[in-house]
């Protein structure tokens, strides 16, 4: 698939290379909207963006300008890439929560949008193996945070992984991708807080019993869910890769608003903590590197000089 242009056997090299390189996004000032589809509480928007598709990998995101050229809404809205291809299309899943996202969900096929991408770092992938001989992967999604997990599942299948998908949300209409999960995953687990689909409660309750048969965890969703996933994975001795959702002003690494406290591998204590950009160093981080308990708290005053331009220490074992 388009998301995996390097084919098999180069995954580790590719991950190492990604860690050292800045993303090379492009800006499409007038990309055509191909399809706008309501899907439960969300809207799926497909855009013709071949220049972005060519470089995009699962876990990366795109940023849409909203409101038109004279809009008072200055900042882009970022969405993880839900589907890559075919034929030069990318798809995102939008929840209409404010004026900018509402404007986006009101687009119709044929409209033009200004998008920048692909942005950020992709999910690292395991070394390819024969079908059924790759690592057993658990993919956890919260609400429309599940969006990037389907393209990821495709890449993991190509590497011989066995895939379990666990999706959770407040209610059935906010549970994204149930039919697709059933189609693509080897097994599924669902949870809703109102009990309308699957287990009643949080998604962690749905997948916790499965962790003993898992080698590798991926997750995308709200920060509280990611914190729980990272904690449970660590307790089970399983590496996790989480894609964070952070408020961003620019999405391209210049504004320093989307930072979160991360401790690179091999460092200890507060002195090792860095405030790193979710947009360029992330959005995918090793789950055990993110210091969830420090989010929203004043960072340590003194630190070693942050590496420039990007730390190369966020590679995690696969």
């Amino acid at each position: 698939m388009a998301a995996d242009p390097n084919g098999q056997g180069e995954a580790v090299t590719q991950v190492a290379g990604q860690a050292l390189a800045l993303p090379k996004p492009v800006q499409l000032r007038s990309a055509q909207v191909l399809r706008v589809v309501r899907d439960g509480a969300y809207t799926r928007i497909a855009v013709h963006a071949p220049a972005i598709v060519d470089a995009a990998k699962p876990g990366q995101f795109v940023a849409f300008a909203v409101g038109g050229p004279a809009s008072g809404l200055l900042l882009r809205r970022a969405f993880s890439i839900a589907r890559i291809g075919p034929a030069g299309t990318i798809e995102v899943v939008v929840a209409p929560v404010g004026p900018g996202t509402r404007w986006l969900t009101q687009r119709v096929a044929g409209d033009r949008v200004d998008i920048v991408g692909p942005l950020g770092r992709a999910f690292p992938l395991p070394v390819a193996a024969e079908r059924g001989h790759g690592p057993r992967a658990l993919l956890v999604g919260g609400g429309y945070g599940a969006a990037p997990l389907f393209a990821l599942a495709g890449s993991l299948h190509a590497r011989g992984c066995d895939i379990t998908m666990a999706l959770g949300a407040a209610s059935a209409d906010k549970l994204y991708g149930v039919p697709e999960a059933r189609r693509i995953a080897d097994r599924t687990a669902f949870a809703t807080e109102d009990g309308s689909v699957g287990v009643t409660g949080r998604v962690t309750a749905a997948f916790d019993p499965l962790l003993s048969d898992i080698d590798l965890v991926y997750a995308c969703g709200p920060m509280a869910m990611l914190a729980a996933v990272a904690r449970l994975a660590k307790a089970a001795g399983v590496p996790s890769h989480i894609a964070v959702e952070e408020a961003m002003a620019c999405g391209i690494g210049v504004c320093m608003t989307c930072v979160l406290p991360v401790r690179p591998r091999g460092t200890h204590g507060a002195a090792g903590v860095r405030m790193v950009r979710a947009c360029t160093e992330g959005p995918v981080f090793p789950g055990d590197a993110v210091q969830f308990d420090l989010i929203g708290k004043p960072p340590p005053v003194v630190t070693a000089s942050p590496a420039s331009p990007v730390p190369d220490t966020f590679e995690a074992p696969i």
Partner: protein
Amino acid sequence: MSRTTSPESVSGAADSAAVEIPPAVDLSTTLAGVPFPNPIFTASGCAAAGRELNAFFEVSDLGAVVTKSVMRDPRLGRATPRMAETPSGMLNSIGLQGPGIAAFLENDLPWLVEHEARAVVSIAGGSVDEYAELARTLRGAPGIALVEVNISCPNVADRGQVFACSATAAADVIRAVREELTGGSQPPVFAKLSPDVTDIVEIAASVVEAGADGLSLINTLLGMVIDPETLRPALAGITGGLSGPAIRPVALRCVYQVHAALPQIPILGMGGVRTGEDALAFLAAGASAVSVGTAVFGDPGAPMRIIEELADALQVRGMSAVSEAIAAAHRPAGTPLRGAGAAGAPVGELV
């Protein structure tokens, strides 16, 4: 000239040659005797140190890159949330997260030099001594076109009073920086002023008296957003700097007032510039060059677009050079646009 935008036109590195300037328009400008090929700069804190934007266009095509304010030591900045969108603007409270001056000089400035960008280096400190030390560290560093002194920082020695809000404290900082950067080969010093003062002309006059070669106008305005759900301040830092088109009229007023009072002092104007017409308004108010800040967040290709739009905007008015537009708002009503200004002394060079 209008840019032809095909449905799939790409503004990427490969497309940088697409910047088309009408040959009849001379976009060059000077600030305190330093020449720049065009008057569109980035704004401090809105372009990091140029690397990220180089994915969208060649940083050498900018008039200059104004780097994020760097302090003596590395800093992690403030807690999150650091940002809130506001009507035609945004608030930020980053807390000057950055690598510190040593890492900046080792990694960032050489990168800009290597990529043939003109670098305006912004420095910030918590004490007069820190500013002086930063200036001393910059002495002799190759590739600095100008030094911009961000004095909108709390003065640790004065209960956190912002330097830029006191004519005396602002002058103390500029004098200290100026003393460290004396000598013919040292870059000119620009003081970046805050609009959050009763009389910006008084502060401007004070820093010029203390040795500033030019002025950067304006920094953000202090603002606040209340989270409608928690009814608490939306930013972890409680207050933040307001930027974007919402502040443009305030910025233009400041540039106009300061130029009227100190016509020989070159001004780098900024505040909500989003289009070439906006940039032209700043030139008319008295700026010799214009920084594009918050617009870059929403439109990373904005500086190149604005350069083209400015050239168009000059041409449709029959003007052939940026110098004709500078301070046009200060000329008597009815003065023809074309040919004005160019024959006079260049702004910023004492006559």
